[in-house]
């Protein structure tokens, strides 16, 4: 048996960051997959280029954990699309991950600061 493929996006994004980014995007309101992907790209000034398909395993995982909920709806162009919204637990999780990320960034920043 072949070994299981690694989660896509792990190579591009720091592990676990994608989940946080999705949660952050949904903080503004419900959105479908394409919107989430484009929003991450746009807000990162196209630095974080997400392979769009890799969103879906992540969305599935977040849904299983109860951090987001999904429903079928209609897009701006009147197409059927699956929308995701943040659950109260997801909101809490986002806060926790944001602060963890903040301290991580600061820690890395301190290490990378030129020696005095």
């Amino acid at each position: 048996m072949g070994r299981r493929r690694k989660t896509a996006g792990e190579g591009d994004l720091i592990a676990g960051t994608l989940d946080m980014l999705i949660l952050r995007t949904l903080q503004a309101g419900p959105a479908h997959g394409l919107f989430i992907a484009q929003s991450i790209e746009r807000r990162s000034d196209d630095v974080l280029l997400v392979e769009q398909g890799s969103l879906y395993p992540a969305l599935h995982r977040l849904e299983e954990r109860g951090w987001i909920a999904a429903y079928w709806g209609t897009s701006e162009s009147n197409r059927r699309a699956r929308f995701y919204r943040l659950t109260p637990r997801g909101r809490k999780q986002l806060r926790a991950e944001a602060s963890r990320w903040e301290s991580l960034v600061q820690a890395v920043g301190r290490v990378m600061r030129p020696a005095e």
Partner: protein
Amino acid sequence: MWRPLSRRRRERERDEEMRAHLALYEEELTARGRSPEEARREARVRFGNRRARLEEIDAMTRLPLLDALSRDLRYAIRVLRRTPVFTATAVLTLALAIGANTAVFSLADTVLFTPPPYPEPERLAFVVARVEGPGGLDEQLSHDTVTWEAVRDQVPSLDAAVYFGGVSGVNLNVGDRAAFVEQQRVSAGYFRVLGLGPAIGREFTPAEDVPGGPAVAILSHRVWQREFGGDAAILGRAIRLRGEPYEVVGVMPAAFDETGEVDVWTPLRPSRSGEGGSANFQIVGRLGPGVSWDQAQEELRRAGAGVLRNRGVLEEEGRFGHLAAAPMVDVLAEGNREPIAMLGAASMVVLLIAAVNIAALLLGRGAGRSKEIATRMALGCGKRAVVRQLMVESLVLGLAGGALGVLVARVGLSGLQHVAGTTFELWADAAIDGRVLLVTGGLVLVTSVLFGLVPALQASRLQPQRALADGGARGVAGGRRRWPGRALVLAEVALGVALLVVTGLLVRTFVNLRGLEPGFDPAGSVRGLANGSLQELRAMPGVRAAAVSLQAPYTRLLNWSYRFAGEDAERGTMVNASYVSDQFFQTYGIPVHRGRAIDATDGPQSAPVVVVNEAFVRAFSADRPAIGRRVQLSGADREIVGVVGNVQQLDSGISFEGRVDGPLIAMPIVYLPVSQAPASLLNAVHTWFRPVWAVRPQATGATAGAIAQAIARVDPMLPVGAEEAVAAMISRATAGERLMMTLVGVLAGAAVLLAVIGLHGVVAHAVSTRTREFAIRLALGASVPATVGGVAATGLAVAAAGAGMGVLLSLWAVGLVRGLLWSVGEYDPATYASVVALFLVVAAAASAIPALRIARLDPAKTLRN
């Protein structure tokens, strides 16, 4: 969570969602001015591999381990079906071992863990007198009336009742019909305490339960159906018990029938004199609501302080005693505990050996499968996956063996119940229920892990390259790989030897018991329970002698106290006593050593006499001739006129000089003529014991039915109880020992068989894997006998080492069965030596048979192949 149905649905939904994503993106790109083809291509590129994402999600929704396990399971079944002989051997071995265990466990479950059929049985207890003394702790169940009154009046925590512990057979007459039934005497409130009252009518009132109270009786459901046809108008009916009129006041429910053999209850009427003057009653109590056992124990202790002093137990050599409550559940299970534990241990050993055997089989097969496993490992299968796969195979074997084992257990259990017959009545209730199946399931799991782990771990240490290059069948001597197999077989030989030693000791115990000099001639004499006339019996054609006595050899006799006349002893000495008619010694064939037997001249008017046995003389009159001495017994001075040989009796619990503990003992006995026994004595003892009629025929077998016929002629209304040959009586007295010996023997036989199979397997395996090596050796000029001997020696060495370990194991194990042995030392060298010798002979045969295959080897042919 694993939800295959919703999984499929979700998969479709994901697919739909991703397609919608692509469509939306294409639309957006087209709107930005791309051509449809460009938009389509770009959308695909930016999205990535849709199928891969679906698979990824799918992988997340299922439990990877479970998935792998179901794959392993299918593979295991395929593999096992490819080797039907191995599979069948393993499954059958396991089925037998698990079957034996399940059967024994269901017995243990019934006997040890199933409570009596009363409501809240855990609140019931017997009151016991715990007497501590130099001889250790003695727990007495029987009490006198003074003790009973103290418990009744001073222990408010217990709702207590008193009853006579034994039952006695009596004649029940209804109208013109007669039946032989078992009677028990119980106090008022007895059924209330147990929690199961009469279904019709009422139980005895305190007013009825006094000396001289009205003659009332309660019937069992069984006898009500059988003798009265379930007549609803039973209350107030007149019946006769032992010839005296009684009035029926109640009928017990059918559920009570299973508690015992009693068919008629009458009031106990306890008084401080007579039987109530000494410890003849048992006390049962139910803990009151909201009261703790500690409280009841404390009250009992306080109540006992006053009364035990009057009981005489404290007079003896500084003994100290107190009353206590012993849970009924524990007391009832006593006596069964040791045999069941013994059987359980023995069948555990068999299970262990079976597991070891299968492990050895798997190990041997593992060597044959090394190529397959190496291939799988070379193809990227991890070690853990290999171990898991092999463990699943073991589990499949275990489950198949377990399922078949339950069938074996059902057959085995009915077989055991058949063998046990009436010796262990509780066994009859044993059944294979849910709890038993649960334990079987546990056994299967443990066994599977046990026999699967070692070979699986060994297989995982395989080095693929070497195994593949090796070609499988070119093993040579000295491989380290063979050691686990040998160690397993060594272990099973050790276990088998230990079990065989225990069996050997049990066999010797039984042989010793059966070899006991009965002290009389059992051949041909018949005893029966009857109220007949000796004259009628003796007038029967073919009857040489007939006698009646209180109880008989190989039963328990009455304890009675006597003292030598003129001796200034404070208290009497306890001996066994029996009254006998003339011709008693002649009928049973008990030899008269000195003086004379009791004969027809000993009547109510002649001088009071007794006859004693050799055990009596040895214990109490060793220093001077017993004949001519006078003993005070039952209120009269009686002269010892004869000394007879000893007979074996069941232990009645008295201590005397020269006593040898055991199930059967030559007790010191005083025989007095039935014609000289005072009526008060007869009345008292007949509430406990039965007169036994015995007949010695002219020729063997001539008197079948003789007693019944004679009695029918005298009085057709007197029923005859069981008639049985004295020889059958003897075998019943040793039935418990024979049962244990048989059961443990069967298990030991199975253990030895399995161990020998294992031994055979080790040698056969060595021969088959080293065929090439042997061929080369033979081709190079090695002699056939030396080669064969060398291989067989391996088996023998394992057997010898295992036997040695087995002996060490036995030295420890016999300590556990000490209580079941009699008249044979736990370390009896003869038993050990013969077991080891037997084992080595069998082991030699088991090793030689496969080794001899080398002799038929054709070196040239083998090497060419």
